[in-house]
């Protein structure tokens, strides 16, 4: 009822199935409906047998959310009553371990086939939460470390899957929570930051990775107890990274959004907890803006047809004007010229550029 990317068959015979195919489909329907009826008549039977039937049905239709609910009701009877998290059991119950592993395998196999199905991700979350409450900390840690590996695999096959990215943040939070009870290092911020670097380096267009990076930076600085010099180094390194990225592909919008993010952290209006450098003077700001404008203008020498360059120049210029009205780094004439280029190169968004001209009063 909501198909994506499936080609339409057209022509005179498009909607006419051969009688053979029709009969085959009718048989499939009958078998499917029989299975659905069988599961539904056993709705109140919380047994291993019915659990097996739900497995069969969910393999045929993982979108059938009621069956996932039914499965959870069965699991709740089969699993030992959850213990409070503060006092994990001394030893995991082998039968419980089997059940949890069974559901992890089921959802893993289904996610390989249906990586965007909300219900499967949701069930995996649920079974892990259950597992966490009935396992000792060592088994729980193994469980969640396995999840980190799994989500790595998922992102390897589709580096933009937002379910997988969301799940990754969730797994990391869980692992960090467990590690607060162990003498090992607690936070995964540094390794997750490294992970985004790795993802970006293999594909600059990965906006999901850039986004996660922007989420990690404030935590990274906090955890490093970074002083002003350390914070300036992080900012400069990020600007250098994005500068290289822009040089590689100035037409990629993911890169420019991250550039905008870095610029927004410079602004006096930026919330203090989101600032990368907290003690910027207006003179510092001017230097940063001027430096950005300088290298972006250099790219302009080779790349006159890229609208993102003009947009970034106007953005930096308007930031600059907020901290210093009487700049010599550029003129109103320059700004008018950039706006004219924007309108020429990007007629789709003409209305936006007209509004921008009015806002900047140029």
């Amino acid at each position, binding site marked *: 009822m909501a198909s994506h990317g499936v080609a*339409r068959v057209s022509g005179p015979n498009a909607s006419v199935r051969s009688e053979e195919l029709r009969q085959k489909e009718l048989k499939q329907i009958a078998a499917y409906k029989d299975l659905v009826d069988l599961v539904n008549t056993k709705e109140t039977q919380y047994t291993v047998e019915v659990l097996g039937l739900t497995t069969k049905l969910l393999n045929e239709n993982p979108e059938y959310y009621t069956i996932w609910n039914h499965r959870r009701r069965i699991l709740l009877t089969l699993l030992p009553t959850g213990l409070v998290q503060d006092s994990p059991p001394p030893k995991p119950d082998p039968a419980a371990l089997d059940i949890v592993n069974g559901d992890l395998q089921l959802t893993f196999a289904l996610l390989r086939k249906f990586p965007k199905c909300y219900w499967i991700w949701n069930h995996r979350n649920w079974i892990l939460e259950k597992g966490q409450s009935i396992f000792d900390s060592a088994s729980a840690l193994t469980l969640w470390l396995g999840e980190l590996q799994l989500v790595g695999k998922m992102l390897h096959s589709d580096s933009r899957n937002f379910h997988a990215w969301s799940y990754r943040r969730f797994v990391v939070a869980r692992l960090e929570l467990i590690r607060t009870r162990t003498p090992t290092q607690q936070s995964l911020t540094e390794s997750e930051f490294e992970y985004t670097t790795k993802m970006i380096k293999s594909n600059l267009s990965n906006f999901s990775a850039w986004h996660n990076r922007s989420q990690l930076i404030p935590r990274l600085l906090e955890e490093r107890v970074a002083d002003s010099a350390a914070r300036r180094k992080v900012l400069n390194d990020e600007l250098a990274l994005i500068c290289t990225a822009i040089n590689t592909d100035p037409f990629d919008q993911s890169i420019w959004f991250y550039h905008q*993010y870095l610029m927004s952290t410079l602004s006096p209006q930026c919330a203090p907890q989101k600032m990368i450098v907290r003690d910027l003077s207006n003179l510092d700001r001017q230097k940063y803006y001027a430096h950005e404008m300088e290298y972006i203008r250099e790219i302009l020498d080779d790349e006159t047809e890229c609208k993102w360059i003009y947009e970034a120049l106007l953005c930096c210029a308007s930031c600059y004007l907020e901290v210093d009205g009487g700049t010599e780094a550029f003129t109103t004439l320059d700004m008018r010229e950039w706006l004219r280029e924007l309108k020429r190169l990007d007629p789709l968004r003409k209305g936006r550029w007209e509004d921008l001209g009015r806002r900047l009063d140029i």
Partner: protein
Amino acid sequence: MSLVSGPGRAGMADTPVELQLFVDKHVRYIQSLDTRKDELEYWLTEHLRLNGLYWGITALHLLGQPDALPRQGIIDFLLSCLHGNGGFGAAPGHDAHMLYTVSAVQILATLDAFDEFEERIKGGRKRIGQYIADLQDRETGTFAGDEWGERDTRFLYGALNALSLMGLLHLVDVEKAVEHVHSCANFDGGYGTRPGSESHAGQVFTCVGALTIAGRLDLVDQAKLGAWLSERQLKNGGLNGRPEKKEDVCYSWWVMSSLAMLNKLHWIDGEKLTAFILQCQDPEGGGLADRPGDMVDVFHTVFGIAGLSLLKYPGLQEVDPVYCMPRAVTKRCLGK
């Protein structure tokens, strides 16, 4: 190929073929949806039945054919999906969930059937409201989809949508809900499924919609979000949902409705988008697909048509960008 122009579209005879909306074909396509019981797909998508009905009915109303499906049959079907706790399942025998409960309320509103519903189920409206309200996490303001606890800004929006249509917003902590939405805002001005999640046009629609219902659009970084949304338009005129992704007709709705709520529809090229949406029609069997040449479905059909309505395509009823329902209906329910 038949080039029938739809009702109420006088003067369309001069419209070039590629700019025609095949109204009659779409109406017949939607009417045919419940007759496809000899297709496995019909049974595999039973978990979407109530959503599908909302999509179909909304499309028909926007096409100016509100009576193309039998009203009584629809209301009877809705009641067969209602649970004792006030929630609706996707179809009879399916568990109650926020997603279907919202669709049910939207259908009742569109059919102007709240009084009739109340006659058949005493205190029914209040019970639905309570079901929704009980799914709010009073600590964080967010909403779960059902008793199993998945949380997502889609459910929060759905809750505010349905409750406001029934005049029952006071059952929940709107201020906390607003705080939660605000905590999902990203540096690009957009919103994700939960705090920390990447901006996604579908989620932007739910968050901006929720804030609009709550009267708190002042919390949105409108210039940034408008810019991000306008960059969803690709050279072929279609819109994508995130940077560097492919275009898809359903984003015509998620992106454009958000731009409309921010009063920035003019930040994209409407003519090119109109042409793109129209190319996604199946001119023979009716219905719209995600992209030209793909299989149609009722989900893309309604969001394509609703998109065309926002683009003021001639002959279509006006759509409300906040609710994805006919504006005349939301005016009646909200009194504004």
